């Protein structure tokens, strides 16, 4: 396993904590997924019910690494301030940096993303940027100090899978030594396996598990899928070809015509 800012993960699955039918199902899904990382966020807290305190206590009990996000932030200032608040609450330098540029597609504003990434890395953060598969943007994020890249597979929550295989493969080929995570768009275990087969180091998903009819079962399916994909990538897959090539030997075949 590749390291993420010096941390080696036991399992290449990062799982979101949103949209589950209940906290018990969330905990069950995490157990089945063997996820090594949980993404979380910050939202307004009420002084009366203090819902966030209970949630935080449950997440801590999962015993996984915490990756806070800046979900919903549309400006650099908003994302940077949220990151500072997350660092204090979650006591981690890790931040999944989201600067959203478009409401319908939740496509990252890659210009704001690069700017925010530079500000945060200079301030000691370890940034996991939610980006597109754009090669030039990736290069700029690395120049800004990011040591991990998280290109989308497809728009968040769409379950479309990997929309631009060529782009994702190009990123992998150009940045051999950079930990790469497909973040968003995964809908099925086959999508997750495919990301790992491409040589990606981890997959981050949430909706595919949380909104499945049986989240725990789907979490287990995802765990098996990333393991299969990872094994396949290490095993050096065959090259596809256009024409058939018989697998059964031709030599020695009986003459029966």
């Amino acid at each position, binding site marked *: 396993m590749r390291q993420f800012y010096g941390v080696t993960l036991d399992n290449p699955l990062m799982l979101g904590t949103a949209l589950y039918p209940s906290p018990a199902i969330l905990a069950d899904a995490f157990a089945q997924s063997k996820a090594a990382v949980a993404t979380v966020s910050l939202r307004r807290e009420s002084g009366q019910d203090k819902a966030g305190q209970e949630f935080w206590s449950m997440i801590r009990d999962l015993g996984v690494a915490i990756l806070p996000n800046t979900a919903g932030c549309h400006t650099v200032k908003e994302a940077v301030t949220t990151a500072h608040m997350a660092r204090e*609450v979650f006591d981690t330098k890790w931040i999944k940096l989201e600067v959203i540029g478009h409401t319908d597609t939740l496509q990252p504003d890659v210009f704001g993303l690069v700017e925010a990434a530079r500000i945060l890395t200079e301030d000691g953060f370890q940034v996991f940027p939610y980006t597109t598969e754009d090669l030039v943007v990736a290069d700029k994020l690395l120049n800004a100090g990011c040591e991990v890249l998280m290109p989308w597979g497809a728009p968040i929550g769409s379950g479309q899978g990997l929309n631009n295989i060529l782009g994702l493969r190009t990123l992998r080929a150009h940045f051999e030594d950079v930990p790469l995570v497909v973040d968003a768009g995964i809908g099925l275990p086959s999508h997750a396996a495919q990301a790992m087969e491409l040589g990606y180091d981890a997959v981050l998903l949430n909706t595919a598990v949380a909104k499945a009819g049986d989240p725990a079962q789907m979490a287990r399916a995802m765990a098996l899928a990333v393991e299969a994909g990872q094994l396949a990538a290490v095993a050096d897959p065959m090259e596809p070809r256009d024409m058939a090539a018989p697998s059964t030997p031709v030599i020695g075949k009986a003459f029966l015509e």
Partner: protein
Amino acid sequence: MKINVNGESQNVTAATLAEALIELGFGDAKVATAVNEGFVPAGLRAGHVLNEGDRLEVLAPMQGG
């Protein structure tokens, strides 16, 4: 004085951010704070004087993807 807490108008007698958090029921809850869109670290809350009309954001851990 009247301040805005998480988007809602509230009356507080507290003079500082630290006192306001106690008055608003947060006690020792795990929260992060921002006043007028600027982050105020926990260590600076006691010295952060609030003014009429200040916009306070109190955030806590929540589900996220």
